[in-house]
């Protein structure tokens, strides 16, 4: 059964009275445990597509069904709640909360979910060990390197036990060693815990690791290859 189903998705921006068709009739579906990359040149619509899958942006037309729920029909508050319980996010600029430690950043979403303190602490520890930061749990983001911050972001994305993780250009700000390291961690989590990862990326190293590569151009899917 598909985790995500996208049907006839359109996104039109009205900028300066000129309509921009950022996403133009995309149909896609993702199965549980996929490790997929959405690729394409700048302005192709991959980030807009990812934002809509994550419920951060609303489509002009079409449907996005996540685990049987048509998320574009949800009201604002319900949609935030849905994201918290079902979707993990990893952003290009890490975007950790600067006043919280690595542990607190990971715990944060579980706190929002109302997970008990004991369970929160157990899972946080497990996740930070899994991303190789077991020794930096009390460090604030400013004391971590870019790669380490992005690994905390991955741990945070997984903390809520989401149905899938959306990663928008997760390696764009990382050096090659950190990129390799991060991809290995995500691939391992994908294999061992069957977590679905969907990336939007320019990075050839990510494309190389991905099991499915969807190429988008001018808001349309021009190829969808499974390895």
């Amino acid at each position: 059964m598909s985790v995500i189903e996208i049907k006839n998705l359109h996104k039109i921006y009205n900028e300066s009275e000129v309509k921009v068709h950022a996403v133009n009739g995309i149909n896609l579906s993702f199965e549980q445990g996929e490790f997929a990359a959405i690729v394409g040149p700048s302005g192709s619509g991959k980030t807009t597509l990812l934002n809509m899958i994550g419920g951060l942006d609303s489509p002009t037309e079409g449907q996005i069904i996540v685990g049987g729920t048509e998320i574009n029909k949800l009201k604002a508050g319900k949609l935030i709640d849905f994201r918290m319980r079902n979707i993990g996010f990893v952003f290009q600029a890490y975007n950790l909360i600067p006043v919280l430690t690595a542990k607190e950043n990971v715990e944060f979403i579980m706190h929002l979910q109302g997970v008990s303190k004991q369970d929160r602490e157990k899972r946080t520890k497990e996740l930070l060990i899994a991303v190789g930061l077991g020794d930096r749990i009390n460090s604030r983001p400013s004391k971590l390197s870019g790669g380490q911050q992005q690994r905390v972001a991955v741990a945070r994305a997984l903390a809520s036990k989401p149905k899938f993780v959306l990663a928008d250009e997760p390696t764009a700000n990382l050096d090659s060693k950190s990129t390799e390291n991060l991809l290995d961690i995500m691939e391992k989590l994908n294999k061992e815990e069957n977590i679905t990862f969907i990336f939007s990326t320019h990075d050839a190293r990510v494309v190389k690791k991905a099991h499915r590569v969807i190429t988008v151009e001018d808001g349309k899917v021009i190829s969808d290859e499974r390895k």
Partner: protein
Amino acid sequence: MNNVKIAWRNLWRNKKRTFITVASIFFGVFLSTFMTSMQQGSYSGMIDNIVKFYSGYIQIQNEDYWENKTINNSFQLTDSLISTIKSVTEITQITPRLESFALISTENLSQGAVVVGIEPENENNLTGLSKWVKEGNYLSSNDDGILMGKLLAKYLKANINDTIVLLSQGYHGSGAAGKFVLRGILDFPSPELSKGFVYMELKNCQQFYSAEGFLTSLVLMVKDQSHLPKAKRKLSKIINSPYRIMTWDEMSPEMVNMIESDKAGGVIMKIILYMIISFGIFGTILMMLNERKREFGVMIAIGMQKTKLGKILFYETLMIGLLGVVLGFLVSIPTIAYYFAHPIVLTGDAAKTMIDIGVEPLMKFSWKAMVFYNQVIIVFVITFLIAFLPLTNINKLNVVKALKG
């Protein structure tokens, strides 16, 4: 990690900015508290002076006396009236007076003056009249002499033990004439009092005006200004026609006007002060909102409800206000306590002006709770109103745009 803890940590992300904002609130609270205390202290001092100098806090008069100050509008002092007044526990002192006018003459000179019949001991307890005696002696009970102001004595070329002639109209048109020995000369700070007042023993005065047993006023004191409303309320219930209850502010409207206009000036100063505070907090919040837009976008994206995020920002704003108020109080409380115990002694022209109008040359401070809690209320109302800015801002936040930074 609860909302308050996150808010507290956020406060210290930009230490310099938080410090500057807190400092602006601190100075606002300190200056405003100091100014209010000084104003209230000086008003209390002025009221205290006026009531202890002559009028008392309350006077019981004939209901027509205030509009038409003639001896015919006097009233008879009865035991029942005294016991009725004494039943009001807030009243601490009572002294009777009979006041009228007379022509005061020596061998070749005459001058009109107010003649006040008093019970020397009671009057002295209430107004400290004896302290103004610079020549001769104060009156004793059953004394048949008189006291007069220094300027009046100078005009009349009267000396201690000289015989002074008083001519007037007594109760209901009877003639009033008498010879009295000048017992003492009063050196009042106010020239008006010094050239226009004569004091004599009450019974002597009643006899002079053929008004035995009559008074024009009963002067009452309460412990302080705060007891006045209650005392007046109680008296109003038990004292009716043909008497009238007059409070110091009704008898001294010019003093009330002066205080009110001074207060208005103070209010304008405080408005300016609080506007500076408001813009300080507003600027900080506005900068903070712009700087952290991306972070807010992330928090909402990963599942934080806007209301919860708004709460954190609301707490941050309130905490800035609270810090400023607490620091302001930590400095203003001991400062005001010191000046309350050690009023500023005025010197030079300022002191002379105050002495001339019969006021002690002291800048007094008030220690009333309202001096402090008013500032808390004002700062919190300001902070509370500004704290709504992040709430509306977060509510309108577009997550996708915020994530782009």
